[in-house]
């Protein structure tokens, strides 16, 4: 057999040759000093690589990894909670707008009558209220803010406090459910 190519010798050393080729190279090596030297150099590479020890990290990576995982989840939950908070604010505003703006515009409070005629009337009233609200808002923009009547201030405070409490309850709930606060088995 001729000298095996460097690629073949490399594959032989790595155990990547088929049985027939492996046997042929082995037979050649038994009687070829040059190929034995080349193989010894390859052995050196293997031995040198094997001598590189495992290097432990300078500190425990787990806290940092868990913090990043927790941040990701906390971020999602927080955004969800904030969206809910915004939705609750909008709902409260819609709920409180008619009486508030009604009181501002001197309109009567809506009554809890759910008959179709009444709802239709309320819708028309709402339409008028919205128009009035826009006019009232424009007036608020130009008039001193202290001109808001006591009922308006009370409704605004109530809406703000409710939204704040509900939102923070959701945020605290998300905080307590963070993955890195879970208990061991």
């Amino acid at each position, binding site marked *: 057999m001729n000298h095996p190519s460097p690629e073949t010798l490399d594959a032989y050393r790595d155990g990547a040759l088929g049985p027939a080729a492996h046997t042929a190279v082995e037979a050649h090596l038994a009687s070829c000093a040059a190929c034995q030297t080349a193989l010894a150099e390859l052995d050196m590479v293997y031995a040198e690589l094997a001598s590189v020890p495992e290097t432990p990290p300078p500190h425990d990576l787990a806290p940092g990894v868990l913090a990043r995982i927790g941040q990701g989840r906390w971020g999602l939950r927080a955004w969800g909670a904030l969206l809910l908070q915004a939705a609750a604010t909008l709902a409260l505003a819609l709920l409180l707008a008619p009486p508030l703006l009604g009181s501002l515009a001197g309109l009567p409070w809506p009554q809890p009558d759910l008959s179709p005629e009444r709802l239709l009337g309320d819708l028309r009233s709402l339409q008028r209220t919205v128009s009035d609200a826009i006019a009232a808002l424009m007036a608020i923009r130009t008039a001193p803010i202290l001109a808001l009547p006591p009922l308006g201030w009370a409704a605004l405070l109530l809406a703000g406090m409710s939204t704040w409490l509900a939102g923070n309850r959701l945020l605290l709930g998300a905080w307590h459910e963070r993955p890195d606060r879970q208990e061991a*088995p």
Partner: protein
Amino acid sequence: MDPWAGVDEQHLIARAQAGQAEAYGELVRRHQARVYSAIYRMVGDRQDALDLSQEVFVRAYAALGGFTPGRPFGPWIARVAANLTLTWLQRRRLPTVTLDPEEYEAPGAARSPPDYAYEPERVYLSAEREAQIRAAIAALPPHYRAVVELRHFQDLPYETIAATLNIPLSDVKSHLFRARQQLRQRMKDE
């Protein structure tokens, strides 16, 4: 005492897949040396290796849902590490390490070498040789480093390396051959 210390690895994986992050923390602790070592061999810089190791574990957590139960976690996370590091090396334009072993980070700084405790000269020579070998690996092109890491340090078969790096089997063979040729030359020169 760590309450997760005695828990079976497959149980940890199942708990982590169910969203229990502390179980995943224990997996990180068990495999961080393997991951950090592999990345450090490939990039040759401790800080980069730390950053990449953390990134590997964070990404692996996100991909844990696709992990097949019953399989060992170590080889999987090592393959994730090699792949992510290779991508990082390819995106990075600047050379990652000095080619001069004298300037290479002193290895073993954070380790205690008990076997050599009473042979300071041997410790120095061993550390110097280790630095030379690390520098030789880090001087290889990124793809060569990846195949050397997966073949010589993770002991993966050629087919798995090809699948991990998404390259043809013939490339694995040729990369390994050329990498060993370059390593042999560099080691002979030093």
